[in-house]
């Protein structure tokens, strides 16, 4: 009946947000969500394996704070213009995660972070090339990414 319960659930929520909360829209949204679930099932995508979903809110909070900090840092550097001694550069980060969903989320995190940009992931040697706006300490960047974002993601998508 519902091949992708989480997707269908969020579709209903989305339907209610876009329209109005009420019984009529709940029924209509549920129908849409059901058919969308079947449509997706016919594409046979990989099912993400959410093991410890309760760790997601904490990760989300950490990310929101970090992105805020990164916003301020990058905004300051842009406004300083060329006077500062900023050095931006490329950085090759070795990754341990392989789950496609977890990788996609990591890419979203690093792209949303104004201080870093996700350029190229190589599934062969499991590395990602990122570009860092203000590269002070390469080792610190790598350990931050691995400990703050990669480790919790690996735990969630075990």
């Amino acid at each position, binding site marked *: 009946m519902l091949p992708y319960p989480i997707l269908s659930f969020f579709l209903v929520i*989305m339907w209610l*947000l*876009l329209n109005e909360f009420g019984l009529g829209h709940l029924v209509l949204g549920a129908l849409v969500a059901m058919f969308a679930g079947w449509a997706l099932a016919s594409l046979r995508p990989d099912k993400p394996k959410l093991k410890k979903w309760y760790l997601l809110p904490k990760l989300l909070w950490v990310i929101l704070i970090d*992105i*805020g900090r*990164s*916003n301020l840092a*990058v*905004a300051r550097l*842009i*406004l300083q*213009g*060329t006077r500062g001694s900023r050095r*931006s550069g*490329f950085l*090759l980060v070795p990754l341990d995660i392989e789950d496609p969903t977890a990788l996609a989320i990591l*890419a*979203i995190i690093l*792209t*949303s*972070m*104004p*201080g*870093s*940009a*996700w*350029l*190229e992931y*190589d599934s*062969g*040697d499991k*590395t990602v*090339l990122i*570009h860092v*706006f203000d590269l002070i300490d390469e080792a610190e960047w790598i350990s931050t990414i691995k400990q703050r974002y990669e480790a919790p993601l690996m735990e969630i998508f075990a």
Partner: protein
Amino acid sequence: MQAVVDLPIWAAIIVSLFLLLGAGLTLVGAIGFLRLPSFYERLHAPALVTSWGVGAIMLASILYFSITQQRLVLHEILIGLFVTVTTPVTFMLLARAALHRDRVEGNPDVPAKAPD
């Protein structure tokens, strides 16, 4: 559409602060996009807009309409969510196109691709 007068003063202050923060970040992002010297550096500036730029304006909108319409208005979250989820796709496309071009041209500043 209701008048701004309906808004209590504390809410007006919070809404304006969020709006100014979002608009300010968007402006700085645009300035950076215009002035930064290299392509890869310019890639960072719009992230200001797509993260907390959009986020702060979204929070201001949620607060304003929730108070003036006296019900919880949350569909702005969808805008934020879709912006966040879709920008990496364009970013990566642009970045990989630039990398490819620089490698073909033999630009020494760009790291070469690891041999397969």
